[in-house]
């Protein structure tokens, strides 16, 4: 269950190949990639700086991956999250999940992202034409994470 925080970009196909290498049990790989948009809250985003809390961030990601393994019938989870300065179209985060079948892989992938958004210590600062601003947390992200509280397999 590797989790990594890095400045460098990632190559999703290479990461997925490594995740499922030599594992014939795998019949499904679900993958999510988050990227930098050029518009957020009606402002042009020129660039984004991502900050984390070294030590706690990795531990939080590991804990989310562990929880996904406990909740879903999956084989492995990979989380790669970038920090530093990013520009529109850049990749931010990769989550990949291997499983025997697609349903558990899709669900676990979504679960990991929903929890990452609300529990992993990362912060975004946007540079827009009118200056810099810290991105505010969204209530919709809390709602997305909360959906997993009562039901272990499906959101809502």
């Amino acid at each position, binding site marked *: 269950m590797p989790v990594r925080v890095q400045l460098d970009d990632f190559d999703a196909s290479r990461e997925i190949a490594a995740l499922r290498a030599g594992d014939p049990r795998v019949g499904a790989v679900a993958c999510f990639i*988050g990227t930098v948009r050029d518009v957020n809250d009606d402002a042009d985003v020129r660039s984004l700086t991502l900050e984390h*809390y070294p030590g706690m961030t990795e531990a939080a990601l590991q804990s989310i991956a562990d929880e996904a393994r406990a909740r879903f019938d999956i084989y492995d989870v990979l989380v790669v*999250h970038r920090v530093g300065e990013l520009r529109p179209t850049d990749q931010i985060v990769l989550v990949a999940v291997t499983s025997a079948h697609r349903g558990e892989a899709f669900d676990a992938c979504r679960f990991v992202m929903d929890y990452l958004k609300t529990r992993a*210590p990362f912060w*975004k600062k946007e540079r827009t034409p009118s200056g810099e601003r810290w991105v505010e947390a969204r209530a919709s992200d809390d709602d997305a994470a909360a959906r997993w509280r009562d039901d272990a397999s499906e959101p809502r």
Partner: protein
Amino acid sequence: MRDHAPVTVRLVYLARLREALGAPGESVALAGEATVSALLESLRSRGGAFASELASGRPVRIAVNHAVAADSTPLRDGDEVALFPPVTGG
């Protein structure tokens, strides 16, 4: 821990809070009760940005030694206490 032993914790301010408070962190010695809420009260009593940013009702998250903490979480000598805004990664 001995009774009345001084408790010194290392504070880490992250993201918007680091900018608002004007420092990446500091060491703070606590006299008396050593809990997260006592620490926050002592920081607020400095006034200025500390009072406004850490006012009750503001969305401030606390972690003690990298684990999410509550107001009642006890603090021990040498703990690392991080203060940060709600997270916005992904």
